[in-house]
């Protein structure tokens, strides 16, 4: 069982019964608290299973140890601090076939955070894209 603060059942979610209720109804929890995390839901598929196992739990997890990936039956649930980025050029090499960022979007089910594409890269970030950071266009060829 994961002990990460980002896991599906972290913090209050690990509590039950009265303990859960006490924290849930605590005065401090009657307003929202800003979070620097992002959540990604990936539909299970041939390609996405490979992306999760080979890239996200591989090089990405090394770069961002806060990343948690959990198996929730029909989907992979991911949460991390800051951002999660998937480079589809890398996926394409791994799969041995052409695989664009729009192929990836076929199986990206949900996002909590600001998600966007730029070239062949998919990013979900806690940054406020369009407010704090300008959304970029792909560079002219």
């Amino acid at each position, binding site marked *: 069982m994961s002990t990460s603060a980002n896991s599906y059942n972290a913090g209050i979610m690990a509590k039950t019964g009265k303990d859960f209720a006490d924290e849930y109804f605590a005065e401090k929890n009657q307003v929202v608290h800003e979070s620097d995390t992002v959540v990604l839901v990936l539909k299970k598929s041939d390609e996405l299973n490979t992306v999760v196992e080979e890239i996200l739990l591989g090089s990405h997890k090394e770069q961002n140890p806060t990343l948690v990936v959990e198996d929730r039956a029909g989907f992979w649930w991911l949460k991390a601090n800051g951002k999660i980025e998937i480079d589809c050029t890398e996926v394409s090499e791994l799969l041995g076939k052409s695989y664009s960022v729009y192929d990836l979007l076929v199986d990206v089910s949900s996002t909590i955070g600001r998600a966007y*594409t730029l070239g062949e890269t998919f990013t979900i970030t806690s940054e406020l894209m369009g407010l704090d950071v300008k959304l970029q266009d792909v560079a002219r060829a």
Partner: protein
Amino acid sequence: MAISSATKAATDALAVNRAPVSVGAQEVHRWLQSFTWDFDKNRTKYSTKYKMANDTKEQFKLIAKEYARMESVKDERQFGSLQDVLTRVDAANRVHPKWNESMKVISNFLEVGEYNAIAATGMLWDSATAPEQKNGYLGQVLDEIRHTNQCGYINYYFAKQGQDAAGHNDARRTRAIGPLWKGMKRVFSDGFISGDAVECSINLQLVGEACFTNPLIVAVTEWASANGDEMTPTVFLSIETDELRHMANGYQTVVSIANDEAASKYLNTDLNNAFWTQQKYFTPVLGMMFEYGSHFKVEPWVKTWNRWVYEDWGGIWIGRLGKYGVESPASLRDAKKDAYWAHHDLFLIAYALWPTGFFRLTLPTAEEAEWYEANYPGWYDMYGVVYEEWRARGCEDPNSGFLPIQWFIENNHPVYIDRVSQVPFCPSYSKGASTLRVLELNGKKHSFSDQWGERMWLSEPERYECQNIFEQYEGRELSEVIAEGHGVRSDGKTLIAQPHTSKDGKLWTLDDIKKIGCVFADPLKAL
């Protein structure tokens, strides 16, 4: 030969802004978006008190070709799974009967939401001026058409391949008598398409989609899988692959008005109204469907709500916007109370009014009662004892002559309908955030369950004139109303709704209801 002025203008524009040599989708997208129009004279049919900026971006940079290719692959995967392996393994008959009933409600109601979202995003396309923002909304219009078909298809699939087709097919014919329909239309229809365009976007995209589609369309698939349903994950997770662009559209709506003075005046009120509008219905109804409409429990609904609504939507969407003046919704405290208790309150009333539904409900078993008490301390003393009494009085058996709504009448616990949300509530027997408020306008009384809806009604009472079932059918006998409202199966006498899912249990007919002599009465007339 002289060329026309239009051709010359196009030629000149192309000379300055040359078409890309490559056919890279995002390069084409950038080129297309550089063609803008003069919006100074733009006349929109759907006005907004906010000024939407003219340079808002689209986060996913879609062009029609990539959009169509992407969506066709989604459909191939979804329909391929449904028509091949899931049919071959008889998946629809492996679903637990209780969950089969939940899907009658979830998919039929979501279909209505998707249908109205077509109009909502068409309206937003009309209201926005930034080309990229329009492009994002346009993609969403097409998505919503797809989703409407998907929801219709899953009911068709359940009806054709599975168990107990009644209710999966043609549920909408019962819309006049079912007390859950009108509340659903308040959130899924009125909230999305009526009023200020940006306010509709906040209802649909920033709250409805960015917040509540995660429990409604994502978390629901965990409950489905746990209860033997592999069709719903196949379809709903595919629907949700479009929702992320809709969430981005909602966020970009906020980005587009962030520098407008009106935002500092109105945005927090609009956000709070939208949050309360959506949560008032989704919180109890989804909790009821998940917990009371399943045999195998994934986790307490309040935890699902706490994760997806409070921690993630609240912290990652709303919390991060704090520095731009966006505040925690003022109604959050009441919403949290509802997330803990309101679905228990609603199930008590839903079960009491079961003949008016289009689905079968079951009382919690002893094992389930233990689960409820362990996860919601105090549940048994409030609800468990009532279910034991109803069961002892034979509420499942047509020969008992007992409908649970009689218990509310006998014990002087009148059931009201909240005028704004259209959600039924019983103020004298409730643990959620509901309390009775009654206001009178032009000689007519209106009941409210909370200050948030009451405030919305006070600002525009003409918006909430929908008759509730107690007003509509006052003085009418129940079996007569069910027959008139098409609440019977194909034999013309057996009710679609039933108070159990047992294969061996007797099914209630119109005659069984008629013998009881239950007559609709408007509780506001007694005040």
